[in-house]
């Protein structure tokens, strides 16, 4: 499959995530859109690793493994990030009884 199809698919997913972050007010949905953007980047990393492998496999039979391991580490970091982020959202809900992100501007007072 041509690489530009994967590029365009990832760009589209990423932009949908951006639109979600900019237009929604529910903090949990904003967080889910961030996860969507992270997954678009992961998909592109895997596609590029397979492209690199196809181009380099004659000289280096394991070319492209690094890209897939980066995706693995991104998933590890994302799991840690989600656990802390959801804990922050729960704490915010407990304090202001809402998950509306507009309430977060009270942080400056």
């Amino acid at each position, binding site marked *: 499959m*041509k690489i530009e199809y994967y590029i*365009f698919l990832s*760009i589209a997913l990423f*932009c*949908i995530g951006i639109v979600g972050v900019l237009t929604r007010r529910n903090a949990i949905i904003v967080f889910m859109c961030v996860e969507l953007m992270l*997954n678009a980047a992961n998909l592109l990393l*895997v596609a590029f690793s397979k492209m690199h*492998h196809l181009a380099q496999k004659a000289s280096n039979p394991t070319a492209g493994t690094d890209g897939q391991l980066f995706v*693995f580490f991104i998933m590890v970091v994302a799991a*840690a990030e989600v656990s802390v982020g959801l804990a922050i959202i729960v704490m915010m809900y407990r304090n202001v009884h809402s998950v509306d992100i507009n309430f977060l501007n009270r942080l400056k007072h």
Partner: protein
Amino acid sequence: MNISEILFYFLSAMALGSAIMVVVSKNAVHSVLWLIITFFAISGHYILMNAQFLGIVNLIVYAGAIMVLFLFVIMLMNLNADTEPKKNRWLKMAGIVAGGCLLLVLVAALKNAEIRGQQAQFNEGNIGLIQNLGEVLFTEYVVPFEISSILFLSAMVGAVVIGKRGD
């Protein structure tokens, strides 16, 4: 057009459609369910590129663990009613226009990129199998692997400390 290409287009349409549904659906629980479908489609893409380890890890970690955490938090807060306040209509329009502009700029910048026409290996190749990835992970990348365990430990402690009922 063989079966893998049909599968590629089908999975792409599924990912994009359910991603749009994540953004537009009013109910937060529905958003989570659509996001799970998106993750399934992305896992399908990984398996189509023969990155089987990542496909399964994506299913277990994202669709399994993270989305259950999201659902759990949403149900804990009792948000499954339509409680989200309306955002200003013009702000919404501005967000959509900004995202569309980003899409336009990225597509225009990358449509004549140098790598145009190169193929991503499809349906074959064994770098994505567990054996190869495991060998590299436990030799070359063993230090980052151990550091990520420390990251998990600190994230766990952080989540417990933040989520603890205040004194």
